């Protein structure tokens, strides 16, 4: 049953050193505020799981929180590479990073299997693809009816999943809409699910019956953090800050510039700072 707590408490009580954790959001609704809070609290040895690691994982890896990364696309979408992640993989800076690499289809199916309580997912994938050679967690099984060879990957079951959503009602039910990505699956697949939301509303009674809702009994904790997805966006609240993504490419290219930026914008900042960052991006 969902509790409403400050973000610092939600992070402190749900995340621990050595945990496997997913901060999910497929371009839309990235839980940046929760990731920044985790950086401030200085966790270590995390297994970071995410289809599109993106800027927040670049920041977490650059700050030395990650032992391992499970992912399917490690780019700054539309901009280029993730330079802190590259520095870790190519040069072991700030330390060595273990990687388990998949395709999007595999990760999506693996989260889906996790939400569905299955030990693995099967799909028609990785045909002729070399990832199957370098990732021992990609296997193949035979369809018992047709004999066709199908790819299999283990289900993803993070210790904790963090997501950002539009709103919660007072009971703690959570609404996600727009590009819903993989968040419902990532939350249901996890042992503990923590949600940051833009706002809390009295109830959802005027909503369409088929909207994506996480019932309150599937959510561990909720923290209200307006703007908490910035520089990602929240459909209906504020737009994506594409200029910030373009800027990140330069910041992450230099270890000192990165460290200074993190000090100023993350370590010395608070969840309350996010509201100001999205002010100019709200719908005119």
């Amino acid at each position, binding site marked *: 049953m969902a509790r409403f707590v400050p973000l610092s408490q939600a992070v402190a009580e749900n995340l621990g050193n050595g945990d496997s954790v997913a901060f999910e959001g497929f371009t839309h609704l990235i839980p940046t505020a929760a990731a920044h809070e985790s950086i401030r609290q200085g966790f270590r040895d995390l297994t970071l799981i995410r289809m599109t690691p993106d800027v927040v994982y670049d920041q977490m890896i650059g700050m030395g929180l990650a032992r391992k990364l499970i992912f399917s696309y490690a*780019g700054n979408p539309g901009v280029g590479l993730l330079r802190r992640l*590259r520095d870790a993989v190519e040069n072991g800076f700030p330390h060595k990073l273990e990687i388990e*690499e998949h*395709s*999007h*289809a595999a990760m999506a199916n693996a989260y889906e299997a996790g939400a569905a309580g299955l030990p693995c997912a099967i799909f028609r*994938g990785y045909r002729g693809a070399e*990832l199957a050679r370098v990732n021992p967690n990609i296997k193949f099984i035979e369809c018992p009816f047709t004999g*066709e060879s199908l790819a299999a990957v283990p289900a993803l079951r993070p210790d904790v999943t963090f997501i950002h959503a539009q709103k919660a009602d007072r009971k703690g039910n959570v609404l996600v809409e727009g590009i819903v990505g*993989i968040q419902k699956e990532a939350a249901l697949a996890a042992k503990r699910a923590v949600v940051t939301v833009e706002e809390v509303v009295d109830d959802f009674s005027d909503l369409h019956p088929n909207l994506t809702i996480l019932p309150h009994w599937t959510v561990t904790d909720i923290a209200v953090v307006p703007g908490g997805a910035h520089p990602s966006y929240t459909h209906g609240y504020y737009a994506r800050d594409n200029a910030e993504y373009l800027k990140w490419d330069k910041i992450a290219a230099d270890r000192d510039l990165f460290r200074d930026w993190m000090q100023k914008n993350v370590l010395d900042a608070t969840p309350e700072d996010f509201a100001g960052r999205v002010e100019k991006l709200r719908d005119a």
Partner: protein
Amino acid sequence: MSKPEFTPNEMMTIAASRALKNDDVCFVGIGAPSAACNIARLTHAPDITLIYESGTIGTAPDVLPLSIGDGELCDTALTTVPVPEMFRYWLQGGRITIGFLGAAQIDKYGNINTTVIGDYDCPKTRLPGGGGAPEIATSSQEVYITLAQSKRGMVEKIDFYTSFGHGDGGDHRERLGIDTKGPTLLITDLAIWKPDPVTKEFTVVSLHPGVTRDQVQETCGWSVEFADGVEETPPPTELELATLRDLKARTEAAHKGA
């Protein structure tokens, strides 16, 4: 009418857009594919269905998305579905007529590398990885590829098989049990290429206006085959060029932000 001036990159995008039909259902990669698909939609193929892997189906953005999940894609889509459904019902379900991919490295058989330069375990350059591409390459009915030519990008042997094209050529796809056509078109900034019916090696079938065979060979890492009757790509029309430039200008203004 005077002939409009255009850049090789503009010619590439416009040539790629022309290959798309009004009833295509297109799985759109970011970058050059996204521009080509939207130019097609804004010119000769207004009813083309554009799908981005973020789950947006039948989208019609006014500016090009920076990422595959910009809000504009959802705002203008017929419907937006969860990502697992996108990969299961729509891509794996066989409903995509054209998967449109870019590439960091490509070989003559349309195999693509976007994973690493160098050794996988100890890479010289760690690239973003495959994302949706490994399954786009095998589950789409056909695959179109677009990239600007360079010896670094068009190589004899790619460093990593991120996405399978025609493998070693010939019937390699069939031998792996892959029942889709694979790469059937390669559009570069200099030429249009199609696979040889038997060997599956990409072969130049059309040179963009003013481009010579030597230019194509000088910017390609393998020994280039030319088809028997190489044609000249019709230059961009004024409408195509104006549409592309307007789209790019709107996009640039939007991405710079407030």
